[in-house]
Each structure stands twice: as C-alpha cells, then as structure tokens.
C-alpha cells in the first residue's frame, strides 16, 4: 500500500487527511499525481511541494515502492 497524506489547505480541499492506495509494480509518483489530481483538481491546484518518505522530491517520474509515504503540501506558512 501507498500511504497518502494531506495537510493544511490541501487537506481541507480533499476533505481528508490521509488515504491509502494499492501499490502496483512500476508505479511512479506521476501515476499517483494523475490519479488523485483527477479526483481532487481543486486541491492539487494548490500543491506546491511533494514529499516521499519525508523528503521533498522534484522528479515526478520517481519510482515508488510498497509502503512509501507521499505528502502533498501547499506553500508553507510557519513562523
């Protein structure tokens, strides 16, 4: 399974903080973005950062592994 996390304004738009999707061999981050982006276009329009296993990633073609944790995040506003 792939664990998906949403925070702050993205979580509000998805109306969910966490979900799981089935891992499939060969799955990439791009596959997940396309899959969830179609279901939640409003939320994904404000996603500015993506982290896989708590590390920010820029390569959307990144291969995923079973039990990965992906976070979709809007611009940060701490401090």
């Amino acid at each position, binding site marked *: 399974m792939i664990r998906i996390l949403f925070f702050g*304004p993205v979580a509000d738009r998805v109306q969910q903080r966490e979900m799981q999707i089935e891992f499939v061999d060969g799955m990439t981050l791009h596959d997940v973005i396309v899959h969830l982006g179609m279901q939640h276009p409003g939320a994904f329009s404000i996603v500015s950062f993506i982290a896989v296993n708590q590390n920010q990633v820029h390569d959307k073609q990144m291969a995923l592994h079973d039990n990965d944790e992906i*976070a979709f*995040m809007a611009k*940060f*506003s*701490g*401090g």
Partner: protein
Amino acid sequence: MSEPVRIQQADFSQDAEIAALKSSSKRIGGIATFLGCARDFSEGRDVSEISFEAYGSMALAEMNKLRNEAIAKFSLLDARIVHRVTTVRAGDNIVFIAAAAEHRAAAFDACRWLIDELKQRVPIWKKEITPQGEAWVTPHP
C-alpha cells in the same frame, strides 16, 4: 536539558532557551534571537486566533537540518529552534530562534537566515480565525 530543536504545543521560555545555549560553550560572545508572535490584525482583518498545523516528523527533521546547516555556514557555537503547533491568541509566542557565535555579526546573520529558511522549508501551515471566518495564510516574503 531540552532538545535544541523542538515542535511543541506548550509555550516556551526564552530565558530557559538562552540559558541552555550559554551552558553549551564559554566561547560564546553573542546570541541573536528572533521571537515570532501572534498579531491581532492581518490583511485588513481582525484576527482572533491562529491555528497551526505541521507535518510533524518532516518538519522536525527539516528544522534539525536547518540548525546543522546554520552552525556550519555561520560557524556558530550553537543554535536553538522552537516552534509551537497549537492554537494561539494575539500576543502569544509562536517561534523562537537563537543563534550563538563568538561575535555578533555571525549571530545576527544566522538568526535572520534561520527564520527566513524556516518559512521556506519547514512544512508548517497557519490558519487565521477571524470574525468573518477562517483562512489559511498565504506566505509572506
């Protein structure tokens, strides 16, 4: 002694953080601090409360990276970063940063760099609660 980098609900004591810094080295010649606190007015609206949310494990890891980078980049003797994640009211403390160096220039530069980088890199979000409703804050430069 408390950890030098923390995310917590509770308020913090600036005196305790500075005392912890000073106890780490007798070579410290200057400590620069930044205290971020909650305002009661933002973007033309009264603000009654500010609610924080964090991706806790990543935020803490990123804050530790920031501390390590600042120590290396500015030759600091020590540094501390504490961020509250809770709901605060006007005047309440939000974030505290302290940078200790042999001389003031490095301490000032590191303190400014740390808060600027924290705002860019640490996954924390704030929501302002106003009489008109709630709104997530768009980052300020």
